[in-house]
């Protein structure tokens, strides 16, 4: 079975780096991008199976990036999980209203994240 390809978009360099390193141990193939624009470009090149997207980013924020992904023909079918350190009363609903498949609050447990990734990729 081929490795699942994940793209992480987050402006926090160390979060991208540490999540990449950790997911690799779980046998994922991971790429990172540090802003929304770069994320969309990487997604088109890399064609991940799933995208992890941070909400609070300078410039184009996560919601705008999500819109751009959903409006970009080649990548609009790729499931997106948004994550954020911001407090949301019902992050999952807001995420789904905006076109994401799910939401995971920061800080997350790696096991939780892996479980969620597997859920949407196997589908």
């Amino acid at each position, binding site marked *: 079975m081929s490795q699942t390809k994940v793209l992480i978009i987050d402006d926090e360099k160390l*979060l991208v780096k540490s999540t990449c390193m950790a997911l690799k141990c779980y046998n994922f193939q991971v790429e990172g991008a540090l802003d929304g624009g770069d994320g969309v470009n990487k997604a088109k090149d890399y064609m991940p199976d799933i995208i992890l997207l941070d909400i609070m*980013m300078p410039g184009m924020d996560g919601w705008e990036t999500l819109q751009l992904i959903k409006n970009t023909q080649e990548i609009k079918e790729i499931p997106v999980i948004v994550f954020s*350190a*911001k407090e949301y009363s019902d992050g999952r609903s807001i995420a789904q209203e905006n076109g994401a498949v799910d939401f995971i609050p920061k*800080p997350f447990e790696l096991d939780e994240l892996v479980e969620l990734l597997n859920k949407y990729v196997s589908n």
Partner: protein
Amino acid sequence: MDNRKLIHVVDDSQDNRDGLTCLLREMGYNVEGYANCDEALERLKAMPPHLYIIDVKMPGMSGLEMLQKLDTKNNIYEAIILTAYESLEDAKKAMDLGAVSYLGKPIVKEQLQEQVAKALGLVALKIDRLNYLTKLEIDINGRKKEVEETLKILENRDVMMDNIFNSLGEGVLVIDNEDSIIYMNAQAQDVTGLSFSECAGNNIAYALKDESLLRILFGFLEKEYGQLMQLGNVYVKTNESNENEYYAISVSDYTNTDNKIIGKVLNFKNETGKMHFERLRNSLLTIISHELRTPLNIIMNYVSLLKVTLNKTTDISEVLEDMHIIGNRLKYQINNVMSIAHLSDTSMVPTNEETDIIELIETQIKKLKIEAEERSVKTVIRNKLKNAKVITDTKILGIALASLLSNAIKFNKLKGLVEITIDNINVDGDTRLCIAISDQGIGIEPDQQKTLFESFVQVEDHMTRQYEGIGIGLFLVKRTMDILNGEVTVSSSKGGGSTFTLKIPDQRSYMHDELEE
């Protein structure tokens, strides 16, 4: 008391006078006789009669001249003229001058009786009328006094209502159903910038100059109202000191005693303090949610990684290095939260101790070693004082320096320089210690410089990562300077770096002798 009517007979002829007097007395009148006009007029001053009977032809002042002086139209008494020859011309003149009638000589008793009765009848009417007018006047004066008193009470009540409304501490503006302004208290005048005396009766839409306020008010008037508005409808006013004031506006119906709606009462409540508190609370939540959760997430990632890969291929020293960096950042943010809590304590009294500025700055720089090395930023201290010591609260000044130095390093260009200059400055005759911290970063736009120290708007939402806590730091610096009675200023240009300057009063008015150049 003599109730008889008084008649003055004025005739130069003794016989005529006596005859007439006699006749009149028989008729029951009180009669006085005068031989000439001057005597009669003299007597008038002391005791005016009800009726004059005056002979026309007399030596000296004539009867007609006297009539003119008597002015019967404007006096109670009347006058009858006696003409010896029944001269119609004299009679006509006499009537024009105010005589009530005339009698020809010789006197016919019945005629006299009739004319006198008729004249006295007129006098009685005049007296009645005068009495009536006098009574009316008294009445009117009484009413006038009453009305004046009522007005005074109303005026007092007006002043009282004004005082009550002014003591409310909230702006009150009342409009009628046509949106015309019918009342404003002092605070409402302050908030709206309108003068009630100038705009009373004007339509509020035309009177109001401030568009944002107008929009809020008309939003209210058209929609359902009565609720205290949400944050979005709060009116933000920039006061003379260029600080924002926040007013929550509510509207209620103005009803009369029959419960009929006759206008609206607009209430302006100053929520500035509450808004500052709200912001502080939101900012703390932001720090806790974002600035603390994200670093924690990184640490957790690495811990998970280490658990899985221990004894495998991962470079553990690199992971530990990252964890150290992120741990430091977490510590910085926790310190920020603690500093906010510390500095928000309004009961806090700063301590006064001798503070070695160089030592304090060096300590803070040491704490920022990792961040400085990460960006290859160098720091240099330029001390222009012989004795760089000040009496102040070391801990509080330390917080300000830590924030400014941290910003100067974080927002410097790679391999940039942070320059710290220590000098004295004279402010209104007082010597103040001046610490200027300059960086070589991208600089701050003039627009942003204005709000830089105002709470921490910058950390909200997606701006957070761009500035990474810059706002929190500067808010803290401003707060420390408020507590130490000092001042913080910024000078910056786009691309030309920024210089933040602290001016701190020396609690012991230390004189720092400047070094000879």
